[in-house]
């Protein structure tokens, strides 16, 4: 393994830097990188090249060409640039390409060269032209900073939510600054610029001159400046070949270095790892690459080709026409394990495992050594961690194998860190493949999160890989597979060359009923692309009618929306569509639509009942629903104040009932009219309150008022059945306590209701004397009951015995109380005994 550290370069005493190849580039570039505008997105993102950007001729062959490649050089897009001259290119955090034109217009392209949108950086920029522009990343998103021809700065901290800010003027600035950069501190974007020997910091309010502490004297100009990935550190390169490194707040100096090269470097970027104490800056000239830090010596590399540096979270990517490399500080775990003659537990464990594979007893010796120091846990952890930082799968494997070997000798080592690392590495190796070309390191991957990584795969239309990763990591369907399928579907609907039918079927086949997929979102997208028919087909698959219906309404498919709403059973939704329809159609068409939808019709009727009574009538009329029309008019009659109005309404109702062939209701309504007129007359003639009494109550009132003749007449006119009339009279007369009249009445003819009610009613009025009169006339069936009511227990007993009725005997017996009825009770008992003997 000695050779493993061959590419490790020490910087100072404590840190090593290594550079390894990620890819040999697949692209077939004809020109040098220096002839192109280049932009590469961080986190292993895509590379954009604009060829011939400075060609002024209008000849088609010489037009600039915009090309987009993956980090491994796989072509993603290529298009002829037809807009104005471009000053600068840059990638946003969402991996959208921002092309800043000279006139201040920023064109936004997708990863596949699809034009998304454009925005302008303001009038001032338009007038003075863009001299230089930078795209920078903040926690809100991606920002654009512009230096205009008037040497003023304009910036927007988030292109997603464009708010232009014009920075204050730098006093006395006559020429363009020698170098400048956008800084982001405390969630605010600043501009740092160098003019001759002076540095200025611009915030949105003021311009202040700043001096880096401990800057070596003799500086007459700053040639290059670099901010670290996290905006925490700043490096300045002066015309004396001196490099100052410190915090971005310019409050503290970290170190300095003198490289003695006075030529301005092409690029200078920070190369440091999060949580590492080491600070280093990579400086690139035409053919030379230098890593400098807090050490007297620097690391030097020779560049064979024109190269481009891309700062990353934990290192620097360097790509040229033929290769793509990564330069970074060797992580602690790797360093401990692989450093020559390292005795770190991880190193010993790796050695032990190797010996074990060779079936050598040395394995045991190494293992014992670690265990004696009690460092086995640490050793395993070290191996796992180091595996994450290795780029080569064989190294990852051997480290993981060592970890797994060490784990065997530990009682309680939680397995999840090991398992998770295996999973992460598998994902990383998959995306690092040159077909995919996303060379993420482990730290970047963790920083980016799996969700963002999936989004990026989706953005590259690598749907199958994304789905495989989701399934492999067992992500919940809603966050994982479904989301990706939905994205796929949204992409699919944009394929204009495929027929609606096929697209809808393909989408449904893939998506099926996958949970969490919103067909309405996809349909909305299809509608957005002008494919209404497709949208409707897709909506067929949408189970949530709450989503389906509004979109259908938006697409003016109200009738379809109506049937969908009805299907859902959500009445509120039905109402919504109904009211929409009502505004959209003329009344006749609206009614016709309703006719075919009984449920909607009945709901609408309910609505009308409470809100628009007249419409309800129209509805019934249209349907020739005379029965309901009749009911409607009856209800309406009660709203009329005057009796004539009521009668008129009732007449209409009666007519409707006749039409509905409901003779009974029609007759009843006519009776009601007759009664109303009659009551009115009674009120006129007799005074008192008659209106709205029922027929029964009208007759009762008449009897109570002593108008027996009229009562009789009324009863005859309305053919009140005899039985009820008797009850009625009986009750009324008893209420009047007109016992004489009652008796006369009882004798008028044979009572159709028997005489028990007479007894009962008299007893109710506590008139035992009258009650007894009738008790004797009660038929044999009810005689016992009647006698008991008037309290004649003895006679009741006699009757019961005579009738030999067991139930009645018990009834009488239960009425026998104490001493008074003792004899009667005995008599009954005897009769019973006798009956039983027989």
């Amino acid at each position, binding site marked *: 393994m000695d050779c493993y550290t061959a590419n490790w370069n020490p910087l100072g005493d404590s840190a090593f830097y290594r550079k390894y190849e990620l890819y040999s580039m697949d692209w077939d570039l004809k020109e040098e990188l220096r002839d192109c505008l280049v932009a590469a997105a961080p986190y292993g993102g895509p590379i954009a090249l604009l060829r011939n950007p400075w060609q002024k001729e209008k000849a088609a062959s010489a037009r600039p060409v915009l090309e987009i490649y993956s980090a491994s050089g796989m072509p993603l897009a290529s298009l002829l640039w037809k807009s104005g001259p471009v000053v600068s290119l840059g990638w946003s955090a969402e991996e959208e390409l921002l092309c800043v034109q000279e006139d201040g217009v920023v064109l936004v392209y997708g990863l596949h060269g699809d034009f998304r949108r454009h925005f302008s950086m303001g009038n001032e920029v338009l007038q003075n032209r863009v001299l230089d522009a930078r795209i920078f990343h903040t926690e809100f998103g991606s920002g654009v900073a512009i230096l205009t021809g008037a040497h003023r700065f304009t910036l927007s901290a988030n292109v997603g939510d464009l708010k232009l800010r014009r920075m204050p003027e730098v006093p006395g600035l006559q020429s363009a600054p020698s170098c400048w950069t956008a800084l982001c501190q405390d969630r605010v974007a600043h501009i740092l610029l160098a003019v001759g020997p002076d540095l200025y910091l611009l915030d949105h309010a003021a311009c202040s001159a700043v001096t880096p502490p401990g800057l070596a004297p003799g500086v007459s100009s700053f040639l290059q400046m670099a901010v670290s990935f996290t905006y925490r550190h700043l490096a300045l390169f002066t015309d004396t070949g001196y490099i100052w490194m410190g915090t971005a707040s310019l409050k503290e100096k970290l170190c300095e270095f003198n490289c003695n090269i006075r030529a301005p470097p092409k690029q200078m970027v920070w190369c440091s790892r999060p949580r590492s104490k080491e600070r280093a800056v990579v400086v690139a000239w035409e053919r030379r690459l230098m890593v400098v830090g807090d050490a007297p010596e620097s690391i030097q590399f020779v560049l064979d080709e024109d190269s481009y540096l891309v700062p990353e979270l934990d290192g620097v990517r360097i790509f040229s026409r033929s290769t793509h490399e990564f330069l970074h500080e060797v992580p602690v775990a790797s360093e401990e394990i692989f450093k020559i003659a390292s005795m770190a537990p991880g190193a010993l464990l790796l050695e032990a495992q190797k010996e074990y594979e060779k079936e050598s007893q040395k394995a045991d010796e190494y293992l014992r050594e670690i265990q004696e120091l009690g460092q086995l846990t640490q050793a395993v952890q070290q191996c796992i961690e180091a595996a994450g930082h290795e780029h080569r799968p064989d190294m990852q494997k051997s480290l993981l194998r060592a970890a797994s070997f060490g784990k065997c000798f530990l009682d309680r080592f939680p397995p999840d860190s090991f398992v998770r690392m295996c999973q992460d590495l598998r994902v990383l190796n998959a995306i690092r493949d040159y077909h995919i070309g996303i060379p993420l390191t482990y730290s970047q991957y963790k920083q980016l999160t799996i969700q963002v990584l999936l989004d990026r795969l989706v953005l590259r239309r690598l749907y199958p890989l994304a789905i495989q990763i989701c399934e492999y990591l067992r992500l919940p369907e809603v966050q994982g597979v479904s989301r990706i399928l939905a994205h796929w579907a949204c992409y699919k609907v944009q394929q204009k060359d495929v027929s609606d039918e096929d697209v809808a079927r393909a989408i449904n086949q893939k998506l099926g009923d996958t*949970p969490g997929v919103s067909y309405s979102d996809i349909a909305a997208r299809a509608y957005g692309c002008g494919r209404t028919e497709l949208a409707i087909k897709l909506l067929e698959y949408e189970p949530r009618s709450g989503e389906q219906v509004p979109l259908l309404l938006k697409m003016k498919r109200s009738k379809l929306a109506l049937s969908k709403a009805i299907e859902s059973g959500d009445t509120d939704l039905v109402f919504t569509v109904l009211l929409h329809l009502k505004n959209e159609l003329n009344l006749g068409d609206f009614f016709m639509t309703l006719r075919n939808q009984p449920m909607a019709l009945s709901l609408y009727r309910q609505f009308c009942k409470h809100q628009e009574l007249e419409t309800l009538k129209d509805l019934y009329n249209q349907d020739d629903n005379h029965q309901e029309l009749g009911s409607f008019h009856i209800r309406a009659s009660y709203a009329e104040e005057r009796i004539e109005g009521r009668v008129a309404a009732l007449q209409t109702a009666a007519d409707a009932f006749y039409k509905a062939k409901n003779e009974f209701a029609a007759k009843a309504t006519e009776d009601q009219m007759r009664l109303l007129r009659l009551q009115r007359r009674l009120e006129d003639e007799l005074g008192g309150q008659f209106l709205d009494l029922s027929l029964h*109550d009208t007759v009762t009132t008449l009897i109570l008022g002593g108008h027996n003749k009229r009562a009789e007449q009324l009863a005859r006119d309305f053919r009140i059945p005899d039985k*009820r009339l008797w009850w009625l009279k009986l*009750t009324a007369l008893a209420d009047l306590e007109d016992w004489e009249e009652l008796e006369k009445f009882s004798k008028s003819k044979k009572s159709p209701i028997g005489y028990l009610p007479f007894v009962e009613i008299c007893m109710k009025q506590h008139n035992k004397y009258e009650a007894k009169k009738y008790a004797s006339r009660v038929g044999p069936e009810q005689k016992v009951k009647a006698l008991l009511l008037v309290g004649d227990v003895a006679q009741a007993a006699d009757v019961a015995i005579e009738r030999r009725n067991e139930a009645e005997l018990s009834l009488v017996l239960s009425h026998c109380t104490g001493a008074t009825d003792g004899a009667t009770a005995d008599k009954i008992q005897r009769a019973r005994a006798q009956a039983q003997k027989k």
Partner: protein
Amino acid sequence: MAAHLSYGRVNLNVLREAVRRELREFLDKCAGSKAIVWDENLTGPFGLIAQYSLLKEHEVEKMFTLKGSRLPAADVKNIIFFVRPRLELMDIIAENVLSEDRRGPARDFHILFVPRRSLLCEQRLKDLGVLGSFIHREEYSLDLIPFDGDLLSMESEGAFKECYLESDQTSLYHAAKGLMTLQALYGTIPQIFGKGECARQVANMMIRMKREFTGSQNSIFPVFDNLLLLDRNVDLLTPLATQLTYEGLIDEIYGIQNSYVKLPPEKFAPKKQGDGSKDLPTEAKKLQLNSAEELYAEIRDKNFNAVGSVLSKKAKVISAAFEERHNAKTVGEIKQFVSQLPHMQAARGSLANHTSIAELIKDVTTSEDFFDKLTVEQEFMSGVDTDKVNSYIEDCIAQKHPLIKVLRLICLQSVCNSGLKQKVLDYYKREILQTYGYEHLLTLHSLEKAGLLRPQPGGRNNYPTIRKTLRLWMDDVNEQRFGLLRALYWYRRCGSQC
């Protein structure tokens, strides 16, 4: 507080807590002091899940009933309307809000739709120009309210009427939603059985909704094995007949509303000597009836005839328990006795209440009329003389007994005869119109529309066949034990209200 909900085989407190949590979350969204304006129909159901104390904890200082014109003055930051999604209520709310705006200091208005937010209502508020005044507009899906350890209710009294008279299936939709909520908490019910058209619709909606919610599938092990959906329409008979269990009779006579019953106070007057009849309480006595009360849980489903013996047995046990104190000699024994006192006193109070209620009921059940009515009901149900005009019903009409009683009996006869002969039906109808007023033409029409009352088609009566094959009538009912029937009986009130 609601311990009785957790006694059953399914812990319904989970559901109750879930709805309470939702309420608290909503209240906390509206920071600061609040006044609630109540849709009157909601106060009852809400009482079952959240007492005033809960509201108070969340800074609810005032409560009003939703009425027209302006709101009573209240010095609060938020005014929250708790309403059903009804258009007519929206008009009132708009009136309230507009008059409040004129009054002065700006308040924050919120609206909570129960159980469903409605686009229609929001549109109405928008038309009235007040939609923007509401900061939070949310829905509170109070569909199934835990009533007892084994009973959930939607407390939607008009459901039958809406479904069968107005063909409005909103309540079915709510039922399906409620069942979905239930499944979210207690796991997906693996089997659904059902009978009747509405049951089918609810089941269909549930299947549909399941598709809608598939994203949030839960992996809770199902607590319920089966779901049985019954359309009330399948059995119109049960709700028409008089309930004969203890609880049923309380409901028949006094009406149970949201598990509360209001009783005449005389029987409950504290029996103290010397007070005389000076201050007899005049306000109705309000009692909550649920299985939290041990005694009530025991007797609620018993046939009323069996209640008396239970009560007297209980009385003996309690007085024996109180007698124990004489046996308590040592300090330890006395301490033990004292520790049981609260429980015993509660039991004694409960016994006193139920004895009084039983007395009240007995007054009714021993009356001759009650007996006659039962006799007629039983005759109908056993198929005796169902095709003629019944003289008891005639007499009831003639004596102008409550219309509801008459209608129940006629409908019962109609159901037991697979509809009435046209002549009989017309006779009854005429009698009712003449006695109770012609306005009941609409009532009768509604009954016919709902199928409770109908002419016999083709003059054939298939009720006797059904009765025999399905064994609907049991001659030897064990009066002591009814059990499950309670849940079925519960819906009878819905049936009798159209």
